[in-house]
């Protein structure tokens, strides 16, 4: 829904209602003939299948025949139906001008099969008690993991070295964190059978700015990789929803089965701080946030989101020439090859 931007002298993550992008509004396995409702920036999305084909509309399918059905909005061009497609195990629906919908803008996910053939146990749904942009910022900043998720990931700021680098375009941000000499993650020790006391950790996160779609590639050595996608779909100003998909086919069986379920432990740990944090970002604060060098990717994220927002507020919804959101990111994630 269109909102009047608040004065931008502070980071107000609820302001970034960015348009003309695909949102993975549901796991493909969650959409059947029975309609389900999702929200994107407070705009309703009803999802259902007709003979296996996915539909996305802004009113309930039963409402199409109602005498007093509401008018269709510009988000569907007056048709009530959003552009919709199915890929990587998600139902993707367009948010913005339906005339600009283009499947070439779908993100590339090199570790997920395009046909969505991923076991159900590798899918989770987590609700975050913060808006999408604040949740993405949380994910970009991995130093919090030492404190909030120590019992899963391990360590509280203990390592030989900890370096964070990042790269970006006008539409994406890629953050890489390299940690050497980190106490081995408990989840690797207890579920993955890693016997070492310390390990190296390389975490790559590729963020699509408009959609909050995050492609995460953590690599532990000794240990293994935990590739997963976390789409922070912006429900509204206060909450976001993540339909997460892992691909743990290279991990040991027990790890493969249990790791996705740990999302239900890690998510509430994030909510422990984000739930009270979100209301403190609803209005401009006279006191600006302080930062450390570990916040550089997050600060860049704020800057890029602000730049996109400013461009869109002037009516420019196009994608910049530096941005190819559908580009192959296999190399960026440190993978040898895409599975497709």
């Amino acid at each position: 829904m269109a909102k009047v931007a608040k004065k931008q002298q502070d980071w107000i993550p609820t302001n970034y209602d960015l348009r003309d992008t695909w949102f993975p509004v549901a796991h493909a396995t969650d959409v059947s003939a029975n309609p389900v409702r999702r929200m994107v920036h407070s705009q309703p999305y009803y999802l259902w299948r007709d003979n296996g084909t996915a539909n996305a509309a802004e009113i309930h399918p039963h409402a199409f025949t109602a005498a007093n059905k509401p008018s269709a909005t510009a988000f569907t061009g007056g048709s009530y139906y959003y552009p919709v497609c199915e890929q990587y195990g998600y139902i993707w629906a367009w948010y913005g001008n339906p005339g600009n919908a283009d499947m070439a803008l779908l993100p590339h996910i090199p570790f997920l099969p395009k046909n969505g053939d991923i076991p159900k146990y590798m899918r989770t749904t987590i609700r975050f008690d913060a808006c999408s942009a604040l949740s993405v910022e949380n994910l970009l900043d991995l130093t919090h993991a030492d404190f909030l998720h120590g019992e899963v990931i391990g360590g509280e700021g203990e390592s030989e070295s900890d370096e964070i680098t990042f790269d970006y375009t006008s539409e994406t941000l890629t953050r890489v964190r390299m940690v050497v000499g980190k106490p081995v993650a408990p989840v690797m020790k207890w579920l993955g059978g890693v016997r070492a006391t310390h390990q190296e950790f390389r975490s790559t996160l590729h963020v699509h700015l408009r959609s909050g779609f995050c492609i995460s590639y953590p690599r532990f050595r000794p240990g293994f990789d935990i590739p997963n996608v976390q789409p922070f779909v912006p429900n509204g100003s206060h909450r976001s929803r993540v339909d997460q998909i892992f691909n743990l086919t290279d991990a040991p069986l027990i790890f493969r089965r249990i790791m996705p379920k740990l999302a239900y432990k890690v998510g509430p740990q994030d909510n422990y701080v984000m739930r009270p944090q979100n209301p403190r970002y609803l209005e401009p604060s006279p006191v600006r946030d302080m930062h450390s060098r570990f916040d550089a990717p997050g600060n860049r994220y704020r800057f890029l989101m602000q730049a996109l927002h400013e461009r869109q507020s002037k009516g420019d919804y196009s994608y910049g020439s530096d941005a190819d959101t559908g580009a192959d990111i296999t190399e960026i994630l440190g993978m040898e090859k895409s599975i497709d």
Partner: protein
Amino acid sequence: MKTASKGIWQPIALSESIGSEVPIRVCYEAKEVALFRDGIGKVRALKDRCPHRRVPLSLGKVIEGELRCAYHGWTFDGSSGACTQIPNLSDEEKVPSRYKVDAYSVHEDNGFVFLWSGQNPPSKDGDKPVFAANEDLPLYGNVIVPLATSAYRLAMLDGPETLIGIHNIGFTDFFLGDPVTRDGIIQVERNAGWIRRGKPPSKWATDYPFILRTISSFEDGTIIHQLFDDKEQIVAQIYMSIFPGTRSTTNIVWRGNVNFNHKDAGKISRTKAPIDIFSHLDGEAIANLLVGPSSQFQEAV
């Protein structure tokens, strides 16, 4: 407790509530405060908002006497509010000296923790609070009630039975004279008697065994109740600090005692909450209170 330094020492917490492992959060008017004990057991008060990502510091832990934020581990000295540690920085990297959180003046005495409300720090000499001095108050508690502080204070003068209880004691609304106002307080006295078979003291008694004296401060929201007998011996007393919380609620921090050596105190249960500060209020009973001594309170204010 108003002092020469244009501020007050407001009791905002109980000594027992504040530990040296995890902080507690108290909302005092617009201030959100994280309270904890430092390495030598001294109570410290910091603004409950990490300057890094605005997360309440009260969600964190006390590590080696300093308060560490739950989110990223930024750590703060309770005395100055200075950020003393940002985890993962190298030995060569220093935390900028301007990185700090507001630190508030606190004082602990008589089982209460007092927060200084003034803009400027309290003066060094003679500014210490005197609330509940020299009293032995082994009963204590704190509650938040869904009633605005101003309304709570007025209701306490007109109908304390809607807000507090002393086991087996019924407060009447037969006020003994008019309220007395002096030195920043208003004092109201009323008859009180035994509750028998669940019924309040009879209206037809020639005399009542007790008097409840309520002393309410105009300045700092403290209220003292004294229940005494016909020989002016105190049977029970309650020291309450009442201050605004969020969303028009009222915070109440209290301590009290019952003189179980008193000949009549045996009817006051030692086990069934001898003193009860109600957390659930009867809205209808409060709404129906007739205006009594509170009218003088409002005039005086």
